[in-house]
C-alpha cells in the first residue's frame, strides 16, 4: 500500500534517510567483524529485496525465482575473475548486467502469466538455473563450487576487510534507496502501482503494462545480480547451495514481512529476517537449555505465521496504529489544497 501522502511529493521527509545514516555510523564505533558481516549480509539481502519489492509490491508481480538471479550474479563474478582474469570491478558490473539481460529474455513471455502461475513459472526458472549451476561443471565447478575468488578492488584499493565491505555495501544500498525513493514517487512508480491495482484499467489509461512490468523485472534482476556479485567477492567461495529455491522463498518472505508496496519495507524485512535468525540462535539456547536448531526453526515458523495473522500488511504497516482518525485527515487534506 502506498503511503497516503503520496500526492505531497516533495522530498520533505529526509528524516528517514538521516536516521538511517546515523544508525550506520554506530557499527563503525562498535568495530566487530561479526556485526559487520551480519550487516553486509543484511545489506545484500536488502538490495535484492528492494528490487523484489518494486516487482512485487509496486508492479504486483510475484517471483519465486530471484535466488537464480542472485546466483547468476555470483557465478558471473566468480567465473569472470577466476577463469578469465577480468578486473574485479568490471566483473561486478557484468554480474549485474548479465542477470538483467536474462531477465529481459525470459520476462516478456513469463510476465504474461498471473499470480500463482507466475509464481510457478519463476519457481521453475529458479530450479532450472540451480540445476545449471550444479551441472555446468566445467564452468561452475559443479556442486563443490569454486574457490579462490579475488577480493574486490578499485585500482589498488582492496575491499579486504569486513568493515570496508560493510561500507561499500551500505553505500550502494543508500544510493539505491534514494533512487528508488524517487522512482516510487514518480510517474513510473504510479504507473507500476496502477498495474498492481488493475492491469486492465492501467492499460486503458495508456500505460504500456507489458513493457513496464518487464522493466521492473529486469531492474529487480539487476539488483539481485549485483548483490550476487558482491556476495561472491565477499565470501570468495561460491557453490550452488545458497541459490536454491529456499533462498527465493526467503526473499519473498523478507519482502512480505517488511511490507509490500512500502518504501522502507524491504530494508525492514531484510533486517528483521536476518536479525531474527541471529537472535534466535543466541536467545533460544538461553531459554531452553540444550536446545538445538530444531527449536529455532519452530519458533521462526511460528513468528512468521503470527506476523501474517496479526500484521498481514507487513511490519512497516505498524505505523498505521498511529493513524489519525479520518475526519482530521480530511480536514488537513482540504487545508493543503486550500
Amino acid at each position, binding site marked *: 500500500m502506498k503511503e497516503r501522502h503520496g500526492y505531497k511529493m516533495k522530498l520533505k521527509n529526509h528524516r528517514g534517510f538521516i536516521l538511517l545514516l546515523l544508525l550506520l555510523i554506530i557499527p563503525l564505533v562498535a568495530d566487530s567483524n561479526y556485526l559487520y558481516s551480519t550487516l553486509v549480509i543484511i545489506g545484500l539481502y536488502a538490495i535484492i529485496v528492494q528490487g523484489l519489492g518494486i516487482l512485487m509490491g509496486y508492479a504486483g508481480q510475484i517471483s519465486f525465482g530471484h535466488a537464480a538471479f542472485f546466483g547468476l550474479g555470483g557465478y558471473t563474478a566468480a567465473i569472470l575473475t577466476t577463469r578469465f582474469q577480468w578486473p574485479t570491478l568490471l566483473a561486478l558490473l557484468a554480474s549485474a548486467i548479465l542477470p538483467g539481460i536474462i531477465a529481459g529474455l525470459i520476462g516478456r513471455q513469463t510476465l504474461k502469466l498471473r499470480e*500463482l502461475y507466475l509464481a*510457478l513459472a519463476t519457481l521453475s526458472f529458479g530450479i532450472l538455473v540451480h540445476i545449471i549451476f550444479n551441472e555446468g561443471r566445467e564452468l561452475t565447478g559443479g556442486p563443490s563450487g569454486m574457490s579462490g575468488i579475488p577480493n574486490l578492488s578499485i585500482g589498488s584499493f582492496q575491499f579486504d576487510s569486513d568493515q570496508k565491505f560493510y561500507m561499500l555495501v551500505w553505500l550502494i544500498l543508500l544510493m539505491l534507496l534514494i533512487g528508488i525513493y524517487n522512482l516510487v514517487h514518480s510517474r513510473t512508480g504510479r504507473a507500476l502501482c496502477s498495474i498492481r491495482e488493475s492491469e486492465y484499467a492501467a492499460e486503458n489509461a495508456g500505460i504500456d503494462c507489458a513493457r513496464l512490468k518487464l522493466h521492473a523485472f529486469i531492474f529487480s534482476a539487476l539488483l539481485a545480480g549485483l548483490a550476487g556479485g558482491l556476495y561472491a567477492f565477499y565470501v570468495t567461495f561460491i557453490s550452488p547451495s545458497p541459490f536454491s529455491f529456499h533462498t527465493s522463498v526467503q526473499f519473498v518472505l523478507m519482502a512480505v514481512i517488511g511490507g509490500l508496496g512500502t518504501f522502507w519495507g524491504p530494508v525492514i524485512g531484510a533486517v528483521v529476517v536476518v536479525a531474527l535468525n541471529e537472535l534466535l540462535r543466541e536467545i533460544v539456547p538461553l531459554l531452553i537449555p540444550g536446545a538445538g536448531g530444531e*527449536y529455532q526453526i519452530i519458533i521462526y*515458523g511460528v513468528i512468521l505465521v503470527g506476523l501474517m495473522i496479526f500484521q498481514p500488511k507487513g511490519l512497516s504497516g505498524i505505523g498505521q496504529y498511529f493513524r489519525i482518525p479520518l475526519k482530521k485527515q480530511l480536514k488537513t487534506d482540504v487545508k493543503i489544497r486550500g
Partner: protein
Amino acid sequence: MGEQLLQLLFTGLTLGSIYSIIALTLVTTFNVTGILNLAQGEFVVIGALLAVSLQGTGMPMIAVFIVSVILVAILGGLLERLTIYRARGASNLSMLIITIGLSISLRGLALLIWGTETYSLPAFSEGGSIIVGGAALNPQSIWIFALVAVTLTGLYGFFGHTFWGKAVKASVYNQTGARLQGINLNTISFLAFVAAGGLGAAAGVSIGPITMVTYDMGFMLGVKGFVAAAIGGLSNVGGAVIGGILLGILESFSSGLISSGLKDAISMIILLGVLLFRPEGIIGAIRERKI
C-alpha cells in the same frame, strides 16, 4: 532395449503414483479453500513418521494406517483453527506465507521429535517386486494407485453427486453468495484441512516403504506435487493425478535415456511450456470446454 523401456515405464509409474497422491491432496485443499497449502508435504512426512513410531509399538499395519490418518487429520484441523481461521480474509500471498511458516514449524517439530534419522516403513504386502516382461514393478506402487483411485472416486462422488459437495463447490465460486444461503465457510475450510491432513497421512504411510522417511523430505515432495498439480491445471483433481503420473514417467525416462542430472531440468522445462502455452493445464482446457 524393450526391457529397459518397460523398466523405465514401471519406475515412472512408481514415481508417478507418489507425485499424484501428493498433487491430489494439494489440489483438494486448493479447490475448496483457494489456499495453496505448502505445508502439505509436512502432513505427508508427519503421517509417515507417526506410522513409524506406531509401528514400533507392535500395532498391526492396518491399525497404524488408520491411527496416523486420524491423528494427522486432527493436526490439520487444529492448525486450520489456529492459523488459517484467524487470518481469514487475508490476501492469497499472506495465506501462502502462512502455510510456508507452518511447514517450517512442522519440519522443526518433526526434527525435534524424530531427529535427523531416516526411517523405513514395511510394505503393505509381503514379497519382492513383481517381474513383468523382465522388468520389476514395485508392488507398493500398486497400493498407492489403489489409494489414488479410491480418493479420486470419493472426490468425484462427493463434488458431483452430493448436496454438501455442491455447497462446497458453491462456496468456492462465490463466498458471499454461499454465506447468504447459510453455508458456513469456516466449517468448510476446517473440514478441508482435516481432509488434507488425513489424505496427507495416508499418502505418507503408503509412500514410506518406497521413499523412506526423513523429517525434511516434505518440502521436496510438496514441490514435486505442486509441479504435478500445475501440469494438471492446479484446480482439477483428475488433472493432478495425470500430471503426477506424467511427471513420474518424464523423470524416469529422462534420467534413463538422456541424463540423470538433467531430469529435473527437463520436467521444469515441460512445466514452463505448460504454463506458457496451456496455463489451464493439460486437462484443464478440455474440461473447461465441456462446461
